[in-house]
């Protein structure tokens, strides 16, 4: 039995790299700095780790050969999930290039809310260390931060030290929209975060009002979505007087039509604060289980984020057309390859087309896929690289155990060679 410290996590997205884990054979136990997201993800039992073809146990070689056979006879395969490390995505893109496949990250419909805003007008954002050391006012829009990343406040706000704040515990936190699900955002001195509640469906209107107010536009109303204009104006005033305000949103929580316009309102609010002589940054909270990794690797390999189609011999980007579920629903795809190396419970969508599943060992199915190849998890079964949700920082994942599970990169390369 051994214990390893300073272990980075690919699961939570916020780049916690201080976990301590005890290793007993192939069983992992988080002994330090765990959380509701990371601990179960590391401790998950391996479960069934034998490849299968149509539900019948097969060797890895047989499964790889069968996967290659399926892909060889397709017109429009779709590669969904895309939850892996950098090398896994590299291998997936190489295989897609060869087979003319669609590559589509599982959470692209969420990331799209940010990407459409970014590709239309851009943004001004920052990374986690800037929040930790500078942020004296955090405006959280429509998002339950601790539900997404339980250790966010402990690691980045209520820190003992911050380079540019005398008392990190005095930072102001304002929730606009959803109230927090727990008390992580409560200051060390017991002062609770200010909550200005509104329904999710009202966030577009509230955000648009903020971006109008910051430009000095007069609003012909006393209140918006039940929030007094004076209260919204007070938010603007606080952002304008903060030393370094941060506006945080989680695209995943903005589950309404055209949420990209809400993101755009928030980005424009941030830009306007900066144009009016004060510093402020945006912070999109989102991207775990390889979402950012997929977008980054696809970004430098194709020029586009992770929803591309190689059918014409080169990658084409369409944030709507190449949605895995849409392609399957419309009968436009004739094979599915699902890559999910982090989460046993993130199973492929139901479909009649032949499915090749590269899933974290232990994945269970209602309907056996044509090919199932259990794979190791980056950061547990093999070394690798994963992006943090702020995109700039790639973390080096460690190998913690040897359970004989292949990496997704190895399996995907084997399929490519078998074509």
């Amino acid at each position, binding site marked *: 039995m051994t214990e390893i410290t300073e272990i980075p996590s690919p699961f939570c997205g916020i780049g916690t790299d201080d976990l301590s884990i005890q290793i007993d054979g192939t069983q992992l136990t988080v002994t330090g700095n765990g959380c509701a997201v990371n601990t179960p993800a590391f401790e998950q039992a391996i479960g069934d780790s034998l490849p299968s073809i149509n539900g019948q146990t097969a060797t890895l070689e047989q499964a790889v050969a069968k996967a290659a056979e399926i892909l060889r006879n397709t017109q429009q395969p779709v590669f969904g999930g895309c939850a892996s490390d950098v090398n896994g995505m590299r291998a997936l893109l190489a295989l897609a290039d060869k087979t003319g496949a669609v590559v589509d990250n599982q959470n692209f419909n969420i990331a799209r809310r940010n990407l459409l805003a970014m590709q239309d*007008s851009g943004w001004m954002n920052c990374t986690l260390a800037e929040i930790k050391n500078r942020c004296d006012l955090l405006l959280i829009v429509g998002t339950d931060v601790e539900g997404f990343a339980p250790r966010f406040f402990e690691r980045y706000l209520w820190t003992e030290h911050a380079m540019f704040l005398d008392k990190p515990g005095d930072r102001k936190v304002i929730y606009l929209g959803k109230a927090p699900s727990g008390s992580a955002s409560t200051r060390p001195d017991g002062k609770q975060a200010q909550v200005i509640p509104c329904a999710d469906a009202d966030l577009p209107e509230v955000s648009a009002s903020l971006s109008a107010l910051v430009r000095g536009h007069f609003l012909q109303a006393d209140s918006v979505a039940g929030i007094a204009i004076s209260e919204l104006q007070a938010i603007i005033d606080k952002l304008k007087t903060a030393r370094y305000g941060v506006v945080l949103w989680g695209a995943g929580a903005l589950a309404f039509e055209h949420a990209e316009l809400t993101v755009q309102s928030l980005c424009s609010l941030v830009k306007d604060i900066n144009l009016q002589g004060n510093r402020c940054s945006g912070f999109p909270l989102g991207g775990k289980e390889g979402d950012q990794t997929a977008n980054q690797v696809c970004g430098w390999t194709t020029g586009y984020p992770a929803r591309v189609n190689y059918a014409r011999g080169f990658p084409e980007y369409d944030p709507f057309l190449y949605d895995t579920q849409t392609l399957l629903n419309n009968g436009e795809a004739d094979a599915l390859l699902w890559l999910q190396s982090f989460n046993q419970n993130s199973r492929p969508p139901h479909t009649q087309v032949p499915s090749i599943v590269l899933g974290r060992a232990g994945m269970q199915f209602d309907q056996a896929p044509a090919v199932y190849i259990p794979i190791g998890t980056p950061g547990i079964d093999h070394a690798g690289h994963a992006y943090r949700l702020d995109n700039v920082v790639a973390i080096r994942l460690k190998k913690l155990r040897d359970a004989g599970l292949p990496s997704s990169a190895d399996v995907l390369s084997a399929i490519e060679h078998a074509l």
Partner: protein
Amino acid sequence: MLIKLTGGRVYDPASGIDGQQLDIYVENGRIVAPPSDGRPVDQEYDLRGKVVMSGAIDMHTHIGGGKGNIARTLLPEDHRMDPVARTSVTRSGNGHAMPSSFIAGYRYAEMGYTACFEPAVLPINARQAHMEMGDTPIVDKGGYVMLGSDDFLLRMLTAQKDQKAINDYVAWTLNAAKGIGIKVVNAGGINAFKFNQRKLDLDEKNSHYDVTPRQILQTLAKAVQELGVKHPLHVHGCNLGVPGNVDTTLDTIQGVEGLPMHLTHIQFHSYGTEGDFKFSSGAAQIAEAINKNPNISADVGQILFGQTVTASGDNMRQHANHRFANPNKWVCMDIECDAGCGVVPFKYKDQNFVNALQWAIGLEIFLLVEDPWRIFLTTDHPNGAPFTSYPHLIRLLMDKSFRNDMLATIHPEAQKMTTLASIDREYTLNEIAIMTRAGAARIIGLQDRGALAEGNWADITVYTENADRQTMFSKPDYVFKDGELVVRDGEVVKVTWGTTHIVKPDYDLSIERDLQHYFDRYLTMKLGNFKISDDEITEDGRGSLSVHPLRGVA
């Protein structure tokens, strides 16, 4: 396999060869002496009538790192116009301003380039830079690690730590981020922007730290020299793009007090304030200062007309310049108490007075700097123009009548404000070979590259002589990378993987005590997880590391 390249006209300035007809032998990836034992040649290339140079080296090109991926993501419309299909040997991708990594590698090789250096590797983003460069085929690569706006250094300077401690930190960072040189971008300015300073002159103090850009430059230039790192401190100066910044640049040259310093994309830092539009050329003064100061080298950062995207660590200046964004969308980021970045699309127009004069200023600098060993051919890809415009730029330098024809088409007021028409100089093939090969290898500190001497790696480019230099340099007949034929008739025929060039200066391990404390207190990553290990570059079986010697070290 013994290869003979027969009878080409060789331009190898590092060996003093200026157009002589010579045979070159290649074996096991290297250039070798003619076999004395009468061994038969396995493959011969008849290069009579061809021009032979070593592979070209781009000493400043943004090919790897986060801001490049932001630029790619920001401009899907730019990629859509330039799709590149896969072939039996190459991967597919997209091109134009900020090409996908595979396409960048192929296109560089297809122009005869065999090495590219990313000039703005943020230490915290170095993994990404290396991963992107790791997916850039054929060419060798390397990076200059950015310091100067990182809070650790500014804290050291404020605390008046001695030069030795600074040197240890610089050396530690070079090792941790795997770089071959040190870069400063708007010294201290990226940091000052985070404190809401919107400009920072050479002698202006950071509002939080008691430090000026001049101090930062002097300290880092000294560190680079004392560590024996051959590449001089690589400096993106203060006040990029600001009319009147020629004075800042001249002060910067004086301020470094004789220490080696490379001023990058100097065109963007050579602007005066004369004329009706309060924008004029400072090229003559800049060229004179370079001519007089042998410690100074520069690359130009030529602009060429058309759509591109600017991607820079200088978020202070990029934020100020966002009002020129075309299309109107832009990104700025504050990054990890380390640095920042700004990405702003630009469309340089020949009928825009400022753009037209920028074009002329760049060419004036090229033509007025006398020593081709100290001036380098760059467009600061993609900031002045995509690297694919190099053959056009070479023609502008080598062909006076072509240059003057182009000059006659730009904004008329800009024509009046430039001396370009009166400059007769035409670059020679030997001078082009210095600028893009021998000089580049020397300034970067590359051992056994950039020259066709025996024992060197066989990175060789063969062109067909053509009076139209753009055509000539667009499409080499052959490109050999480490002795393997990778390009024939301007098309990739074989994909190989270049090495990553680095230096590994020594440092006192005690610096890690301070760093450990700093990381644990203020940063978001453990010190041990920050350092990039060798196997991160090599474990894919394609990448390799080439460690270059330091000055004064065998």
